[in-house]
């Protein structure tokens, strides 16, 4: 892709508000990650 078309490509990005399903994906992923961090961290310390 040339410089110009890259710039055009990036300029073309329109406004796409976060959908509820994306918020859910981010929330669940982060929430599960943090909860598992505590659980797996404790287990690995005990092991």
């Amino acid at each position, binding site marked *: *892709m040339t*410089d*110009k078309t*890259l*710039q*055009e*490509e*990036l*300029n073309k*990005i*329109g*406004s*796409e508000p*976060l*959908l509820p*399903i*994306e918020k859910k*994906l*981010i*929330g669940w*992923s*982060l929430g*599960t*990650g*943090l909860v*598992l*961090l505590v659980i*797996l*961290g404790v*287990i*690995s310390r005990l*092991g």
Partner: protein
Amino acid sequence: MSEAAIPRVKWTEDLIALVAGLLVFALALPNLAGFDLLGWAVTTSVWTDAGKGLGTVSKTYADLGGVPALLFTYLALLGVLSLAAKGLRLPVVKFAAAFTAVFAIAYAAWFIGSFAHLAAVTPADQKKFGIDWSLKLTNEGGYIIALLFGLFIANVLPSFAEKLKDAVRPELYIKIAIVILGGFLAVTAAGKLNLASNLLLRGVAAIIEAYLIYWSVVYLIARKYFGFSREWSVPLASGISICGVAAAIATGGAIRARPVVPVLVSSLVVVFAVIEVLVLPWVAQTFFSSDPLVAGAWLGLAVKTDGAAVAAGGITDSLILAKAAADGVNYQPGWVLATTATVKVFIDIFIGIWAFILGTIWTNYITPKPAGERTRLVEVWERFPKFILGFVATFAITLLLALYSPPQIVQKLAPSIGEANNFRVIFFLLTFFSIGLLSNFKKLWQEGFAKLVAVYALSLFGFVIWVGLVISWIFFHGVLPPTVS
């Protein structure tokens, strides 16, 4: 049976890496029965007299001499990789010419890196070579020299870099190296099975964390604060947070992004990986030499692309061991690299699963496909990096041989696998040089690229590196490699 009915193998870099890696491993095994098939390959020792730097990896072939060994090694690699090029439908003659230059420059870098003033580590080594100073880079500093050579050519001699492009295949080289690495790691692990299994479990835990926390935060940053569309944000989040090129392409494909999007993200991934490789191993040596496996896991989580991460793990292994040795602690080599490779392999395994999850969400909720068309579970297998099967196979076979063979076989196992590992080092080297050649820093200043660079830099240096460090510390702090007397 008609010709049309015979299914043709579709050769990909992934499949070729699997076959080539297994071939090297298989050729090393007859040495257990006294048939040394790989001992003629070239190896480089730390030198002060250039004439004595090259030699054969096995004493059986010592009479061959270093330069002929180098020539035979080049010819063997040229033969196997030219076949690979044919499988990939590349112009074989052009590939062979380009590979000749790539091999020559990369091996020259390795040879220079083994010069005693660069590589000698301990005062005893310096005394042995009759020198009073050394940069103490270890001979793996040759990787960095190869990377710098590649960067120089890519950024100062771009027309020459263009001529080499057919043989610039870091993903192919590192995947072959990882298949071979399985055997080497099994030899290392066999003596300390408890530590090795502990490391595997901690590696899985670290990866689950990295996926869940990294991806969601980077996706949120790209979408909410930088205004990227979903089509750009998914490959960006995957490239920055998971495993660079492969993840950007797999997840981009899963949400049906246009191919150009993950390709552009991938070019950024490589450039930033180079910056990380040039900096992080020395940071790890400075701050984590007392916690070597934290350093190993951290590099696996922080450095994107398999090639850069595993290779950085190799350098860090040498640097930390050298520093520890200077302090009187002699760790067994290979454990830092083993930790980085374990983390990276688990990351690769999870790419297919994550792509499947995203594909399912996108198909059902964001861009629904026509009724009846659903993301298929078989896509997880299709996206599964097959070279990992080779890594698992070489690891399992070597471990079984180490645990259940008669003592006279076990005694020969380390030197035999060492001959295969010698090729792993050469493939690492080709990877480093190739990564350098692909890193055109001018891209960062390309008009329109600034926003991509900004989200990448902010996420990587402001979040991913630090969270990776915390996760590595939580799971690997206090787990030390075994020491040797």
